[in-house]
């Protein structure tokens, strides 16, 4: 059975999950026309990155029980979460403002500066 063979997950496994989330986020940012969808893509990207930080910083996952990043990984993850929250708040405020002025959340229509 696959499960049994896996044992404790390795850093690589976490990296793969992080990579998948990251790529989904990138596609989301690229494809979505809804501003909120783009925002969600950003959240996904940040989370994918976060997963990497935690994986590298985890003693539990490290092969020799001593992670290369140590506590720094978690601290970075913490900052990323905080900044993502801040980013979401501002982006949402901008989106709502945009919605008020244009009655849409379609980012393709946000071309006021286009000239």
């Amino acid at each position, binding site marked *: 059975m696959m499960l*049994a063979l896996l044992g404790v997950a390795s850093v*690589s496994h976490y990296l793969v999950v992080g990579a998948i989330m990251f790529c989904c986020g990138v596609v989301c940012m690229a494809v979505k026309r809804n501003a909120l969808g783009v925002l969600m893509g950003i959240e996904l990207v940040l989370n994918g990155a976060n997963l990497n930080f935690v994986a590298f910083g985890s003693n539990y996952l490290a*092969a020799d029980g001593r992670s290369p990043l140590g506590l720094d990984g978690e601290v970075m993850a913490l900052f990323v979460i905080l900044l993502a929250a*801040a980013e979401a708040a501002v982006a949402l405020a901008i989106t709502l403002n945009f919605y008020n002025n244009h009655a849409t959340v379609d980012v393709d229509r946000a071309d006021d500066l286009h000239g």
Partner: protein
Amino acid sequence: MNQDAFDISLSLFALIDWHGFFFLLFAAIACIAALMVVLTDNVVRMALHLILSLGATAGLFFLAGAEFIGAMQLMIYVGGTLVLLVFGVMLTAQTQLVALRTPASDRVLAGILAAALLAVLVQAAFSIESWQKSGQGIVSAPTATPLGMALVGVRVDQSAEANLLDAKGGYLLPFEIVSVHLLVVLIGAAYLARAKRRRVPRPVDLMASVDSVEPNSSVDSPSTVLSGGSE
């Protein structure tokens, strides 16, 4: 019930490594939900899938021994940010905006690029030998307290107990910067989404107007006006 089959299933059950099992479970939820975020057009469903994905990520954090970060993820991300997001979704959820579609060609192009990116990343993930080895699973001390100390500038994990305060490499300055940043963002967001005109309170001064309908004392026997003459 065949005894052999029972034994086999029991032993298979015994083989399950719960850590691996939960890792697979959370990883699968996180990845599939993330994929669904991309594939769904309905913005409310997207938000739901994002919640699932981020919640499962919190589970992965717990599995990696980062309990504090996991709880943080649940509280700030899932609890706070996403409620905000759902708010935004609902405020702008008009039928024509719920499902905005992109041309198929764009989607395909983005898909190809993402697949290429994913391939590179996965290759990188497996490129280093030590990353591939399963962890020893050594449970180190809980990280919440050292993390908190690190944020106020004391790195307890890098120095001996004796000279705690000499330890360098704390995160006091970044912590302060982030705090100020958050404050700025808070004010900025409130400013951006503020109400431009507020409720105009209606001045209530009724006592003055009551006087105008005070009873006229000259009317002694109230009755119909006309009958007053005829009675």
